[in-house]
């Protein structure tokens, strides 16, 4: 009797349609304003039928999201819930709780249209994944990241569409490994480095080996640099700067590879900005006094909300949950 793929045409169905419309506008289109949120809140308050239809679809979306961030991709070996604990990562805030490592138990292949050559790898908010390429190189993806990889005989090419990735590249003199990101090209000769793509800015941190970075955008002013261990390159459309950082600092900055975001004397506003990369719910810090607070903390990448609990319970800050926004104030 029941037909899975029919959407019925009733009063309840009309409400559900409206709920789906709110949800997908908030989730998939980048045009959600405070006015929209207020309108949604008003619609939800109007009737419990509205609310239950919305909650039902919202939790479906949450499940889809949660499962997609657990998704190991094609060609990928499962990530083991490893015991790679960081020696320096003392958990200064006990309330943050146990280290939550992302362990991928299930194997899950999405049926996307056939892609003969380049493979697409991605993670959702708070997600993390390791991709093992056929040449033995490894790429670790941080939160909210999309890359394309084209690795075959005589060619090793990756483009970063968004997010952050750590590369551990197997040396092959005949075939340099090329990474393109936002108009910049990184060419490496057997190295370990990370690339982070942000609006208008690319950051490359080199841990081991040697690599070059150059602009490949035809209209940009040509710039290029050779990176050695400890170098951090910051490239924009028109500039390239390189600075040295001590290796322990770099390792700490890359602690997302082990499922942690580590803050060492960071301001609360910087903490919020960093944590917001890992979650669709955004933390907003209200008031200059609160913004300037200095924080030492280690936060699991897949449970950013742990931080808001600590902010309330340990730092005694006001935490107000507004659904897709969490406001922290003094």
């Amino acid at each position, binding site marked *: *009797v*029941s037909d*899975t*793929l029919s*959407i*019925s045409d*009733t*009063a*309840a*169905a009309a*409400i*559900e*349609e409206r709920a*789906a*419309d709110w*949800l*997908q*506008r908030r*989730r*998939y*289109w*980048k045009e959600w304003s405070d006015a929209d949120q207020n309108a949604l809140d008003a619609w*939800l308050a109007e*009737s*419990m*039928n509205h*609310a*239950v*239809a919305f*909650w*039902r*679809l919202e*939790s*479906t*979306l949450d*499940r*889809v*999201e949660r*499962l*997609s961030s*657990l*998704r190991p991709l094609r060609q990928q070996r499962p990530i083991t819930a490893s015991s790679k604990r960081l020696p320096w990562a003392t958990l200064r805030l006990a309330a943050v709780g146990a280290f939550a490592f992302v362990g991928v138990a*299930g194997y*899950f*292949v*999405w*049926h*996307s*249209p056939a892609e003969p050559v380049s493979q*697409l790898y*991605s993670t*959702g908010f708070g997600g993390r994944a390791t991709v093992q390429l056929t040449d033995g190189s490894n790429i670790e993806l941080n939160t*909210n990241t*999309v890359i394309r990889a084209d690795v075959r005989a005589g060619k090793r090419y990756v483009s970063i569409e*968004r997010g952050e990735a750590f590369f551990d590249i197997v040396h092959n003199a005949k075939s340099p490994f090329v990474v393109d990101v936002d108009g910049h090209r990184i060419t490496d000769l057997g190295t370990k480095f990370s690339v982070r793509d942000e609006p208008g800015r690319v950051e490359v941190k080199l841990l081991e080996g040697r690599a070059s970075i150059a602009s490949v955008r035809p209209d940009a002013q040509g710039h290029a640099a050779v990176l050695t261990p400890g170098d951090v390159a910051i490239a924009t459309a028109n500039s390239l700067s390189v600075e040295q950082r001590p290796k322990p600092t770099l390792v700490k900055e890359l602690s997302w590879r082990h499922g942690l975001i580590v803050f060492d004397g960071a301001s609360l506003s910087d903490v919020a900005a960093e944590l917001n990369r890992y979650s669709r719910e955004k933390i907003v810090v209200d008031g200059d006094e609160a913004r300037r607070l200095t924080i030492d903390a280690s936060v699991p990448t897949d449970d950013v909300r742990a931080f808001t609990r600590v902010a309330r319970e340990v730092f005694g800050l006001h935490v107000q*949950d507004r*659904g897709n926004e969490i406001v922290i104030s003094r």
Partner: protein
Amino acid sequence: MRDIAAWFVREVLPLEPLLTQYLQRNWHNPSDIVDLRQEVYARLCTSAQKQFPEDTQRFVIITARNLLIDRLRSARAIPLERSADVAALDVASDVPGPDRIAIARDELRRLQAALDELPTRCREAMVLAHIEGLSGHEIAQRMNISPRMVSSHLNNGLRLLANMMYGNDFHEGKGKP
């Protein structure tokens, strides 16, 4: 309201196959099921605002039964054979509860199977949104369709996935590989 929402998602939604099955068994018109189900949910949550029930499953079935009785009273023509059933409903022993552990274990497979069941264009939009992380506008470009069509695909995708992930279709073996 947030604790009601959390309770609803955690305690009530997993019972959707049970509730749907109950309604299907005891109501004469299959096209009313979606309406009835939503009304049961609304009544449950309204009541939970005052107090959370101790036994959610029992409460869900009692609420459903009361709703069916209300509907029968207000209906102009009562289908005789069904109304007799409703009056005699045995709440406690009617249907077994879902196997929650199995549901958790099968969740990935369910989602995979649910996606496979979606209409092609609808699935394409959902995959682009969730796997490639594209925005609505980017999906429109990629699929070469209007933003309005993208909205419609995503709307339908979400609603169909909800039906398949919470509904009882999987208990009937539908969509399994």
